[in-house]
């Protein structure tokens, strides 16, 4: 059947000129996939493939990872140091020395004039752990501002806060291997196929082999919800009542694991007292979930041999984010589902190294989950760094969200923004602009010069990105993974570590006894090892070579394990596996009652729609990366809303038309895509696009974590008569 011709022509397929493959860890989400990057003869990255030997991804990659080699040469990379005197002036090219001297002198000037904390530093979850550690040391040890935070406040703060409240420390107790052991899985506000596609594949693969019920709690019919055994289409912001009602059923029917609670928990009576008020009927009125469904899920969850809960921003980004996490922990604790195979409350982290900053950056305290509020912790760290203990504040300063409020109020006059872009990522863009306009000095350090926040900078420092740098990152399952510099940053751009060390040099000049800032990531890792000994996040058995060899090592991996000759396990490392080993002083986890009060902005006559925001699989955060990779960006190049077809028909909105969304904060022009994925009174708007979602969001803050509620607010939808004009505006607002 050689059909079509009698002469067989040779077949020529495209090939890539890969000379060598280098293995690094993906720089997008927190799954922590191992990527082989193919480099050509000139050392340019031309290909990516999933590393098949890494336990995390077992050869798979999502569409962002597959084209990650494209980001090195993407447009918009900063290649020059830039300076200007005023934000209205054009940029002039500058030198590292001039810009860093200015950064140093401006920090000190503002601190002298307005007080130590009048200069704020905001970083990210995107850098490498050694960089976070160095920045923390620089900020806490030399600069001395307490208004230091990361953009992780926008994604993981509620998980951190909830873990701390329940278990006494941050640190997700589960691992991916739990998918292979669990008998029941609840996904709270987590659309894994879109947010963590490779992690979803691990779940799917395990599910296809064993089969177990999956419950998706989500107000939208996401792919996760559609593929789950049971979808609970919950009313936005009402997860806590649902959790309370589930606990109500568990206690009422005696399904709790009394022995586990007895050995591991405190606060049972107060919890029982609170949940006694939360009958399924009452919760049903609030959540919109059928009371019988609540009972069914609660029973099945409690009866499962091992039950797992995963969650993402659906829980964290709400006014009850921290409470939601505590509720999940409560459910896990009363059913004994912590620290056992298949039983875990596993927060799925957002950014590639959100865990690294949680562990080491010292934004919310001191390295390795040490607290500023704890004298012993302060002393240990001060001694180790060789600084005066008194220099360290005794209480945590402001979070990123509160720093912006303080900037608006004129309390903070200077800002150093590192690898984050609040102009796209913080709620209520117009307030963000107003806050940044008031700054006396702003330095933006970013690998992209076209990140919108650079508009408000006086100094721009071009940073390196991803595999232009050396160090480690920690993923969702606490696996420390390697990233190596396989490409040099373009032009004058430098790795962030280099920048921090040069800044540290300048501050060190003030001191008689300079603080040591090692130059290489390997030496810094050595410091971290020492600081981690005996801590929860114990790195002491690891080093860069060993991590690389094993394609990541989960913490804890102690020096004792290493000396015993224990090879790091492939996976399956969990926390709190032994009784009463939680991190509260008594070793017990706290069961915390969660009274609930609805404080969200609700749809009303004027603004009749819920505005829900979230992620798309093809984009990463503010699109500075994926907006420039055509094979990612093309799947959604402009902002759009999912709108219920009946609502669209009633408003006279046609498929693919532009509409104007209006909230009490501002407006945005987006394309309307009618789909039954969302209820009649809700629109879903992806947050990735500048000048879209966050012009509208309210961002009420969680009282514990200070994380904004991005997913629950009201808006109205206006038809646009002049579609051509709308198209023009939409196009102009997409510089990438």
């Amino acid at each position, binding site marked *: 059947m050689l059909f079509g011709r009698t002469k067989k022509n040779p077949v020529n397929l495209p090939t890539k000129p890969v*000379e060598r493959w280098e293995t690094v860890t993906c720089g997008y989400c927190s799954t922590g996939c191992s990527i082989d990057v193919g480099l050509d003869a000139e050392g340019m990255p031309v290909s990516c493939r999933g590393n098949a030997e890494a336990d995390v991804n077992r050869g798979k990659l999502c569409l962002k990872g597959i084209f990650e080699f494209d980001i090195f040469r993407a447009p918009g990379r900063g290649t020059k140091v830039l300076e200007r005197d005023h934000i209205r002036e054009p940029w002039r090219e500058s030198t590292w020395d001039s810009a860093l001297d200015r950064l140093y002198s401006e920090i000190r000037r503002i601190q002298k004039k307005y007080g130590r904390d009048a200069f704020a530093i905001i970083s990210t979850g995107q850098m490498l752990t050694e960089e976070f550690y160095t920045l923390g040391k620089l900020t806490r040890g030399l600069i001395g501002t307490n208004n230091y935070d990361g953009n992780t406040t926008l994604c993981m703060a509620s998980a951190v806060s909830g873990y701390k409240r329940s278990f006494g420390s941050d640190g997700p107790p589960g691992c991916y291997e739990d998918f292979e052991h669990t008998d029941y899985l609840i996904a709270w506000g987590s659309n894994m196929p879109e947010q963590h596609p490779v992690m*979803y594949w691990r779940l799917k693969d395990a599910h296809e082999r064993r089969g177990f019920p999956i419950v998706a709690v989500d107000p939208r019919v996401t792919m996760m919800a559609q593929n789950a055994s049971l979808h609970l289409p919950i009313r936005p912001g009402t997860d806590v009542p649902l959790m309370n009602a589930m606990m109500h059923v568990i206690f009422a029917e005696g399904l709790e694991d009394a022995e586990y609670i007895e050995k591991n928990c405190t606060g049972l009576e107060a919890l029982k007292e609170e949940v006694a008020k939360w009958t399924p009927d009452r919760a049903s009125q609030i959540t919109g979930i059928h009371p019988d469904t609540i009972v069914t899920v609660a029973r099945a969850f409690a009866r499962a041999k091992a039950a797992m809960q995963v969650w993402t921003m659906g829980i964290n980004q709400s006014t009850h984010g921290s409470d939601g996490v505590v509720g999940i922990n409560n459910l896990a604790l009363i059913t004994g589902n912590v620290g056992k195979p298949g039983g875990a409350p596993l927060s799925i982290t957002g950014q590639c190294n959100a865990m690294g900053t949680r562990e080491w950056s010292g934004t919310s305290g001191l390295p390795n989950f040490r607290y500023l509020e704890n004298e012993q912790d302060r002393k240990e760290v001060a001694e180790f760094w060789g600084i005066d203990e008194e220099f360290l504040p005794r209480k945590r300063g402001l979070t990123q969200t509160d720093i912006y409020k303080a900037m608006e109020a004129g309390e903070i006059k200077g800002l150093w923004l590192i690898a984050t872009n609040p102009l796209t990522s913080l709620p209520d863009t117009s307030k963000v602009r107003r806050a940044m306009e008031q700054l006396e000095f702003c330095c933006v350090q970013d690998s992209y010069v076209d990140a919108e926040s650079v508009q408000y900078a006086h100094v721009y420092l071009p940073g390196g990105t991803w595999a232009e740098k050396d160090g480690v990152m920690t993923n969702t399952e606490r696996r420390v993974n390697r990233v190596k510099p396989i490409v040099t940053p373009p032009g004058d751009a430098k790795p962030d570590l280099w920048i921090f060390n040069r800044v540290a040099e300048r501050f060190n000049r003030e001191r008689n006894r300079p603080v040591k800032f090692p130059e290489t990531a390997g030496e810094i890792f050595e410091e971290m090892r020492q600081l981690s000994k005996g801590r929860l996040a114990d790195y002491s058995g690891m080093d860069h070579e060993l991590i690389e060899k094993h394609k990541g090592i989960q913490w804890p991996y102690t020096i004792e394990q290493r000396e015993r000759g224990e090879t790091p396990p492939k996976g399956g490392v969990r926390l709190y596996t032994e009784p009463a080993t939680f991190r509260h002083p008594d070793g017990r986890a706290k069961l915390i009652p969660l009274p609930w009060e609805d404080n969200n902005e609700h749809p009303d006559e004027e603004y009749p729609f819920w505005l829900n925001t979230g992620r798309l699989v093809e984009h990463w955060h503010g699109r500075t990366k994926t907006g420039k990779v055509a094979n990612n960006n093309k799947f959604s190049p402009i902002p759009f809303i999912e709108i219920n077809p009946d609502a669209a028909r009633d408003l006279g909105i046609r498929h693919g038309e532009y509409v104007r969304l209006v909230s009490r904060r501002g407006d945005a022009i987006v394309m309307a895509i009618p789909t039954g*994925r969302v209820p009649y009174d809700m629109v879903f708007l992806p947050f990735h696009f500048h000048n879209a979602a966050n012009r509208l969001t309210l961002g009420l803050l969680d009282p514990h974590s200070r994380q904004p509620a991005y997913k629950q607010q009201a808006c109205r939808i206006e038809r646009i008569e002049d579609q051509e004009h709308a198209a023009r505006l939409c196009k102009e607002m997409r510089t990438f």
Partner: protein
Amino acid sequence: MPGLVPGIQGNGLLSVLPWIAGTSPAMTKKGNTPEVHCRTNVNAGEREQTMFNRREYEPEYALLRNREPERKTNQWGKEIETAPEGSPLREEPFIVNGDEPGHNMRNPQRYKQHGFYFNADNCIGCHACETACAEKNQTPPHLNFRSVGIVECGTYPAYRRLNISMACNHCDDPVCLKGCPTRAYTKFAEYGAVLQDPDICFGCGYCTWVCPYNAPQLDPVAGHVSKCNMCVDRLEVGLKPACVAACLGNALDFGVIEDIPDNRVQAELSIPGFPDPNITHPNIRFQQMKTLEREVKRVDSMPVRYHLNEDKGRYLPEVDEDKLPEKAWNLKKLLTSHEMAHVAFTLSIQAVLGAFVLLVLGRWAGFTPIAGIAGSAAGKWLPWLMVAIAAFGLFKLNMHLGRPHRFYRGFYNLRLSPVSREIAGVSAFFAGLMGYAFFNLFDNAFTNALRELSAVLALAGTGFGGYYMYRLYRIKARPYWDHWHTGVAFLSTGLAGGVVLLALAALIGSVYTTTLGQLTGWLVAAALAAEAAALFLQWRRQHKASSEAAVSWMFMTRSYGHTFTLRLALMAAAFATALLLGLTGWPAALIPLALALFVEKLLGRALFFAVVVPTTMPGAYFWKNPGFIEHAREVGLADNPMVGVAHERHHPFRVGELIKTIRETTWAEKWDQFKRIFTG
């Protein structure tokens, strides 16, 4: 490591191929073919491999299954084995990127039809397959060999979305291969892969018309087609295609056709949203067991939904009233489209064919009003006018190609392609016409004989080319065209256009007679009546049919509603004028008739191309959404290459490339090429 097949250190690729474990990795040489080695080497340090660089460790899910299928024939009754043991086809080298594994290293299933397996319940629409394909095949962002389309059904929260990942189905009946005039396609005995060579293709895009799955991709920038190549380079080293290995939902699989993957139970031939598999017998099998609603809708701009037909047990397409466009003129869009080249070509060539046939037959029959023209001064320049009009049409047709300088390849697939036959026929006609026009300038026995010979050639070309000009539009994947009305419309244009052309020439040449006028009137009236009747019958059959043709009629009466009304009015006006001319023969009626007829034919033919709705894969929201692509081009979003939409563009006639090809092709090769027009 679970799920991985350990390699044997040091021996490289050969030892890790699942089917040759334990055998000697010796190379083979073959008698009359160049020495072929499988030089693939897992040691990336030495870049010797030209096939596919298989890693020392490949995960289980990426490995091709090596198992004998239970069935000998597929569900359509066709042999799964493509070339039996001992067939000479097995001896011919299958060289991929200059490389071929030796006999004992070959996939034992190599000579069986392979295909994709798609578990629609599992697809999460994560685009990993599409992107892995783009990464491997280095396709530009505005096209891809694989894409995920979406259909959805139900109301919140009882809503379900069905993602359909689709590439080429390497069909049993590859309509692309049969349609391609340049013979750029081959269906190989190896894996049954249908491969297309962009270096042969001249970018006419006919394969993109006939394929129901949107598999061939016409690149508006590069000017040629390319498509899924089954990753035969990966298959040869024991790996499944890149898209399959990349799948994050465990939805996509690949193997010998009808060999259902483990943990799967169905081998369905279709799922909702998938075009009728009867058209091409595609080599894809499906599993789709989760309950869907009676109606599923496309999410792209196309107003198509699929409705469950209980009798046929399939979802059939129909008009989605939720996306009905406004009634409009849309004249600009209509008259500036890429398809205007076809409008110009078909109209001009049909009018000239008609005029020539009437002229020659009229003269031969001694029918005075026409023979009078032939014998007059007008008889000398009229054939040249015809040459000019036909040349204009041919020029427009050729210049719409993505590679116009490769025009000569249009005949290559004479054995299978109606396009090749049309081109051959029209070329014969044009040659005959030119001969006729030339020899008609003289008047002696010798030139007269040559003139008549030319006329015979032209008439033969008319019959052959004219028939295939019609046949080539009878495309099952374009149901609006796939109706006999198409033939009537073409005949009507030829007849009416031809006779009016003759009458006008007679008027200008002062040999106009009332009889000629009356003949013109009756012929035009008859042609218009026939076409109107055919159009009506087509409408009656199609406008409510379970077919994309119904959507075409909706576009006709809404998107182009006013234009269509104008066309019908012009038809009526032309018919009335023609009747008047038929009854009276008044020359004054001829001019308005010609004008009305011209505009009517222009609009009618433009509509014919504009409203056709292919039976094809559903698209998505932005990428692969025809509405968004059009919008992005219109408002300039397409200027940004990151949007993944390329502007249509004109492709120059590269004389240099043509001369280079002529120079570099030896006479022996040219002769071979010529022979293969007839042998395949």
